[in-house]
């Protein structure tokens, strides 16, 4: 009975979302306050019913209700309880429900935390979010009902969750990632609302900035978690494969990063408005593209769900409607906006513009590399794949250039920066970075051009960031007072940029100085990787909750001393009879030691993968810094104080821009 209630809740949520997308918008266009007042209650209603559906599905998983087809396909009575819980989003239907729950959650959050926004704005923003909800709720109700039953032939037990997904990584990776993906819907909704009522001003940028930053921070965490999971669970020690689905998550991150920076310019200086709006639309469209790529079955990847052409068509339609409608709106409304402020050709504005150019170039590059094979295949022009070398070759220069530009941009001033002054300022950071980079490379044993560029770029960003912090914090009342005086958003920026530097350093060092060896070993053998010796002691067997495992015992020796003992496993899952490799890793801040067992070659001998991974943790540490920076930035006091001030300012600013203020009335 419960599953039917869940389905009913979804349908009710759909109906409420339809109301949400129409009523407040109509109210805002006709100026009827009583209709606009529906916005917040309807947003809450959608969230409550989607939440109810999600709770029902979770209940079905926890109680092993195998009459529900989705549960039967993705769970098993032997599954430990925490995996039963995370199995809720282990397949297409449930993960889509999680996606919608997050969307409804973001909508509710906007309704709650935007009390100080003008009613017209909030009605339109919530209506646009309502439209997005309608799209996804229709999708789940029509094509992907998670509550379909297997009646009357209820299976005795479930088909089990894919063993790859039985992992802590799966519990946390999708929710974080979806928070990011879906969060960009808020920035999109603000942009569309601003286009509808013609209010593309600094206040609009200030409202949408914290939402964009939070979404971006979640997406950073989600991508990092996915990479970490791949590293220890399925990648045999790889952390980024340029797999189309990884790219799908990177795309909104790249354009979202560009959006964050261009929003900063729009808020501070009132320029780049049209560009910022376009980026907000593009970023959300890329999130939808990601959803399409993963859920339509056009891709072959561990992420892709079983193919169903109907789903692909629906999502493509959703993407097309979103892109066409918002770009049409943009085409009609964007020219209303006009720029008043000026800036020189050498200013912080220009540096941030260049940042956007680089990030958008990187986005285009990844789009081309990801979609090109799909388009060719669709047109039946041949099957081909574009592998890692393409992305490494093209993405790395852009990443290095972004870092170099960032270091210089930190010192630049708004409006106009003197070139000679900037050059003199950069002299010392440049010298320090070169010396430090050389030292690092010597420490890792050898000069490699790409390693130098990558480490130098990271070092340059770090030195420039600290240099700037040092200068800004100088105060007659002492250093500590100076440090305290800096705003939280400034510290957010510092953390974000340091995070980028840390990730870049990690990626560069591990790619250039990591060592990987596949060897054949029998118990008693010793293999050498770099300075480390691996002693294969023996192989044993053990029984897990829903699998049996063979595990090896390896002593890792450095300079004659035992550093650690590792137990990599080969697991055989009892339900699906599938085999899984569980690597064992001795993790450290400066290096990881990685051992995984491959297949059995003879009775005695095994294939073993041994790896030395310097600075690999820095990849994810950097993402943590970036995410922390994002959260710190939105905790800045000025958002609250100024939001309060806005409501006053806004009534004033309406007057000098009659065209934009009345246009809402005209269109009605």
């Amino acid at each position: 009975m419960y599953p039917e209630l869940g389905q009913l809740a979804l349908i009710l949520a759909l109906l409420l979302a339809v109301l949400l997308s129409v009523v407040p918008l109509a109210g805002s266009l006709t100026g009827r306050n009583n209709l606009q007042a529906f916005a917040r209650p309807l947003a809450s209603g959608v969230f409550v019913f989607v939440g109810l559906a999600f709770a029902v599905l979770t209940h079905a998983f926890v109680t092993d209700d195998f009459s529900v087809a989705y549960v039967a396909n993705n769970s098993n009575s032997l599954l430990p309880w925490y995996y039963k819980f995370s199995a809720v989003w282990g397949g297409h239907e449930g993960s889509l429900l999680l996606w919608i729950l997050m969307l409804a959650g973001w909508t509710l959050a906007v309704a709650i935390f935007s009390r100080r926004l003008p009613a017209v704005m909030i009605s339109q923003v919530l209506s646009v979010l309502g439209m997005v909800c309608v799209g996804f709720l229709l999708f789940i109700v029509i094509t992907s009902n998670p509550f379909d039953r297997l009646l009357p032939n209820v299976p005795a037990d479930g088909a089990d969750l894919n063993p790859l997904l039985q992992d802590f990584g799966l519990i946390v990776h999708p929710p974080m990632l979806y928070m990011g993906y879906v969060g960009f819907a808020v920035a999109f909704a603000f942009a569309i609302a601003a286009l509808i009522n013609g209010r593309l001003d600094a206040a609009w940028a200030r409202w949408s900035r914290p939402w964009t930053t939070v979404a971006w921070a979640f997406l950073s965490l989600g991508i990092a978690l996915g990479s970490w999971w791949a590293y220890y669970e399925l990648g045999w020690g790889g952390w980024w494969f340029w797999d189309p689905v990884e790219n799908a998550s990177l795309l909104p991150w790249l354009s979202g990063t560009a959006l964050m920076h261009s929003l900063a310019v729009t808020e501070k200086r009132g320029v780049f408005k049209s560009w910022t709006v376009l980026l907000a639309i593009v970023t959300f469209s890329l999130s939808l593209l990601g959803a399409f790529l993963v859920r339509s079955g056009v891709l072959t990847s561990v992420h892709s769900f079983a193919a169903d052409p109907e789903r692909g068509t629906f999502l493509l339609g959703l993407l097309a409607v979103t892109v066409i409608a918002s770009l049409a709106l943009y085409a009609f409304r964007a020219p209303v906006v006009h720029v008043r402020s000026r800036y020189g050709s050498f200013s912080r504005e220009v540096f941030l513009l260049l940042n956007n150019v680089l990030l958008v170039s990187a986005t285009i590059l990844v789009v081309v590399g990801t979609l090109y094979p799909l388009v060719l295949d669709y047109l039946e022009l041949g099957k081909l794949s574009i592998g890692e070398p393409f992305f490494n070759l093209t993405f790395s220069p852009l990443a290095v250039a972004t870092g170099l530009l960032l270091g210089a941009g930190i010192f630049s001033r708004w409006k106009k920066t003197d070139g000679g002054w900037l050059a003199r300022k950069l002299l010392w950071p440049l010298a320090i970075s070169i010396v430090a980079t050389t030292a690092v490379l010597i420490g890792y044993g050898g000069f490699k051009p790409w390693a130098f560029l990558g480490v130098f770029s990271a070092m340059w960003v770090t030195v420039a960031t600290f240099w700037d912090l040092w200068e800004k914090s100088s105060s007659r009342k002492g250093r500590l007072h100076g440090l305290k005086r800096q705003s939280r958003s400034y510290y957010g920026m510092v953390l974000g940029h340091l995070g980028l530097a840390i990730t870049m350093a990690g990626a560069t060092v591990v790619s250039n100085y990591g060592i990987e060896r596949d060897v054949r070993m029998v118990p008693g053998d010793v293999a050498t990787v770099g300075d480390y010796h691996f002693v294969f002691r023996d192989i044993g067997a053990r029984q897990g909750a829903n699998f049996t495992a063979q595990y090896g015992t390896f002593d890792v020796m450095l300079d004659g001393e035992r550093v650690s003992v590792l137990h990599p496993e080969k697991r055989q899952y009892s339900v699906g009879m599938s085999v899984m490799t569980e690597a064992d890793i001795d993790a450290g801040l400066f290096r990881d030691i990685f051992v995984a067992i491959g297949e059995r070659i003879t009775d005695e001998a095994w294939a073993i993968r041994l790896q030395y991974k310097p600075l690999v943790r820095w990849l994810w540490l950097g993402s943590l810094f970036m995410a922390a920076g994002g959260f710190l930035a939105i905790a800045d006091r000025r958002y609250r104080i100024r939001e309060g001030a806005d409501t006053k300012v806004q009534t004033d600013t309406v007057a000098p821009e009659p065209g934009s203020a009345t246009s809402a009335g005209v269109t009605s």
Partner: protein
Amino acid sequence: MHPIRKKRLTIVLFLLVGLAIAVGLTTYALRQNINLFYDPTQISAGEAPVDVRIRAGGMVEEGSVLRDPDSLMVEFKVTDFNASVPVQYTGILPDLFAEGQGVVAMGRLNESGRFVADQVLAKHDENYMPPEVADALEKASKGRHAASGSAETVSY
């Protein structure tokens, strides 16, 4: 020149330069790194280029997997039930690699018609079949039907 126009010109120039670099790099890199897919029938018919990095895929032929007991070298045959290609690989095979399962391999074809793989990908779960392999099998099965003219059904 009018300052606004000058500024716009710089912006446009920046965009163009960025775009040009991106397009240049992309086309260059694309030319170097595209890997075409060939099925066993095409390879054995000599349609695949020699010593160019390509992808090949099909089913691992039953009983064809040969392991070298002293190294990580392994040899197997990939088939679409129409033709088969010997594959040589040194390294660790994926967990789900097995006889009778679909695989995709990356590597180069050598002079003697042997495919030397540097990467072997197997399916991710029980029900999954790489689409290239599915297509290749379908094509091969159609070809066989046309050739023999019989209505025999092939079950995999």
